[in-house]
């Protein structure tokens, strides 16, 4: 059974290698090959899942040691896998959503001449992501971590001929690299503290280390998580990442890769549990991002960027839950899974709309699409209801639990966290309703594209609608399924632990409050966008609106704080290197040259001047000899 794990990771990696090396020969079958390999991974995951289910709670762990990777003295880094309930959950999410999106991409990318490459990159992503969640040590996790970063870089910049896409890809990679510094340093700290960076010894021994060290490790892990999961302050890349093809946004920048940060923190739970300061920072980051993303999401006209803001905000919820400790881990992961379904569904719906509207992304130029694209409308609508937490759809269960856990933190903090999350829920309802209304309702505001083609909206082909329908099912029923008999909680509890916090407000109250703020949010959006016609050009708005439309000035800040000074620094250094460092060298050379030039003047070619120096020299010698005699 264990050996299947290697196969599970290997299948998509093999696909990537085949498609990239195989060249044009595979152009015609490449996409099916890639999809088949993704499906293979899913089947293997299902087999492993059923195997785990046959075992008892504590026994549900599989290990596979493939080979020793980098052995140097005391340092042991192995290529080894660990499959437990937490990684199993991720594997199922990744392979199922991954396979669906492969299928969707067959239709979406049908007219792209580089489709084979696209599928190669998708497979590469799948392999790297599986490696990330299945690794049994932090170094191998790091390999997957950067591997998904690479796949994300390649896919965001897939349409490389567009400078904006190339820039966005580079930005994503570099911001992620900043986060990676955190992961590197965390691994280094683990090695110097524990002498290893495998999960089991580190997490089991975490309590033996000093709190300062653990806080350090925790904060560094958080930095890494911020980079990958687009949390404040490393959030700036996610909006731009929407330059990639929409299936990529659905798979990588909504359902799976961006949640890797939550995985990292949940996986390292033992470290955070022993470092309360680090936990507090995680909670703060989660809370800030939650609002940040929601505010940005409210202001964007680009459908994908609005959804990206939403993703950021939802991951903020997960991050916050993970920061709460054992009270929240399970619900963070639960929200992660349900979010994986409904957000992927939303993005695929958005892709379907763009596909129909000549790749238009501005919602101000949509409107009234529900009659033209019924399947997209229904699936998008169900996912919409799930994300705003409509009672008994999946978002309702997972988000309410997180809000409840926030209140359970207790004291003033509990009230603040709960309040922030309720505010976030209201904003979620607001921006999602806004998207819904601007896209599918109201009157047509369609405009011809740059080439003058009028849009003729039509329903997407089957390869695209099937994944949307399946995901819609997931969005509707996942929460109910997870919540029935607390199945999900019992499944994850052995890995993450579970505590029931002491909340000043009951479960029912939280549910009511969440539903109430949702209604407020929906109503607010309806008053603004449903009752009145949507203007085709965005109003200028007030200060906050303007800032939100510029992503709350994140890029302006980064430019002012890092890019501009960095440019000046490099330019200054290039100048200094040339003038000062190299100047010193050339100066030494030049001064020798100058000296020799002076000396050469003595050799003037006049025989009589040579004679003078001869006589002078002889006289000096004689004088010296006489002087020596005298002394």
């Amino acid at each position, binding site marked *: 059974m264990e050996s299947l794990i290697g196969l599970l990771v290997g299948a998509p990696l093999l696909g990537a290698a085949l498609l990239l090396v195989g060249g044009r020969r595979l152009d015609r079958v490449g996409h099916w090959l890639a999809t088949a390999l993704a499906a293979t991974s899913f089947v293997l995951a299902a087999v492993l899942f059923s195997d785990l289910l046959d075992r008892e709670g504590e026994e549900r762990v599989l290990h596979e040691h493939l080979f020793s990777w980098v052995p140097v003295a005391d340092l042991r880094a192995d290529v080894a896998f660990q499959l437990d309930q937490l990684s199993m959950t991720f594997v199922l999410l990744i392979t199922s959503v991954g396979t669906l999106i492969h299928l969707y991409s067959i239709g979406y990318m049908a007219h792209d001449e580089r489709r084979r490459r696209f599928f190669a990159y998708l497979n590469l992503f799948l392999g790297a992501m599986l490696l990330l969640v299945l690794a049994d040590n932090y170094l191998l996790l790091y390999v997957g971590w950067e591997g998904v970063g690479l796949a994300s870089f390649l896919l965001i910049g897939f349409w490389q001929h567009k400078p904006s896409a190339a820039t966005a890809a580079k930005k994503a990679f570099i911001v992620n690299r900043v986060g990676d510094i955190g992961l590197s340093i965390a691994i280094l700290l683990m090695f110097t503290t524990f002498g290893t960076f495998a999960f089991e010894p580190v997490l089991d021994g975490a309590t033996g280390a000093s709190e300062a060290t653990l806080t350090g490790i925790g904060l560094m892990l958080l930095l890494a998580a911020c980079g990958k999961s687009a949390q404040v302050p490393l959030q700036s890349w996610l909006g731009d990442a929407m330059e990639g093809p929409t299936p990529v946004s659905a798979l990588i920048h909504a359902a799976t890769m961006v949640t890797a940060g939550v995985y990292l923190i949940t996986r390292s739970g033992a470290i955070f549990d022993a470092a309360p300061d680090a936990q507090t920072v995680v909670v703060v980051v989660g809370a800030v991002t939650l609002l940040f993303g929601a505010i940005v999401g409210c202001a964007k006209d680009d459908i994908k960027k609005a959804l990206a803001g939403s993703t950021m905000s939802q991951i903020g919820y997960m991050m916050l839950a993970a920061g709460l400790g054992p009270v929240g881990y399970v619900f963070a992961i639960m929200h992660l899974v349900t979010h994986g379904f409904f957000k992927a569904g939303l993005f695929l719906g958005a892709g379907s709309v763009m596909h129909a509207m000549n790749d238009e992304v501005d919602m101000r130029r949509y409107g009234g699409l529900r009659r033209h694209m019924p399947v997209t409308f229904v699936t998008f609508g169900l996912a919409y209801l799930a994300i705003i937490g409509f009672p008994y759809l999946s978002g309702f269960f997972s988000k309410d639990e997180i809000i409840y856990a926030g209140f359970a933190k207790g004291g003033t903090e509990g009230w603040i966290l709960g309040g922030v999350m309720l505010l976030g829920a209201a904003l979620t309802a607001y921006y999602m309703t806004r998207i819904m209304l601007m896209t599918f309702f109201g009157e047509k505001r369609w405009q011809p594209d740059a080439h003058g083609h009028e849009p003729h909206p039509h329903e997407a082909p089957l390869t695209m609608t099937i994944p949307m329908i399946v995901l819609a099912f997931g969005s509707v029923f996942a929460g109910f399924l997870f919540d029935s008999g607390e199945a999900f909680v019992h499944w994850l509890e052995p890995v993450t632990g579970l505590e029931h916090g002491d909340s000043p407000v009951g479960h029912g109250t939280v549910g009511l409050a969440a539903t109430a703020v949702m209604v407020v949010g929906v109503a607010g959006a309806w008053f603004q966008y449903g009752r009145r016609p949507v203007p085709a050009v965005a109003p200028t708005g007030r200060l906050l609106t303007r800032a939100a439309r510029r992503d709350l000035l994140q890029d302006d800040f980064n430019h002012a704080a890092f890019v501009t000074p960095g440019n000046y620094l490099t330019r200054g250094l290039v100048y200094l290197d040339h003038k000062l460092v190299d100047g010193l060298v050339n100066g030494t050379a030049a001064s020798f040259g100058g000296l020799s030039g002076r000396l050469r003047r003595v*050799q*003037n070619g*006049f025989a009589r001047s040579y004679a003078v120096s001869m006589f002078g020299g002889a006289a000096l010698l004689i004088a010296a000899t006489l002087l020596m005699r005298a002394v």
Partner: protein
Amino acid sequence: MNPENYLFLAALLFTLGASGVLLRRNAIVVFMCVELMLNASNLALVTFSRMHGNLDGQIMAFFVMVVAAAEVVVGLAVIVTVYRSRHSASVDDASLMKL
């Protein structure tokens, strides 16, 4: 007679020759001054020979004469050639002996 006087004379002649080499431009005159220096040294050598009572100095003087003769042959040939090509016997005109 005190042999030291011959040495003073030799020194005087040598100095005269040396200043001639340094101060005159005509190659022939410079050449004659060189001869004067050589002969001054010859005089000194012979004097030393007399003072020490052995023949080493005189033998040395003969060598110098032979060298001087050879020098005259080569030197005059050079001067004549230079004069033919440059129409001048001034040593300062031939200042190309440098890099």
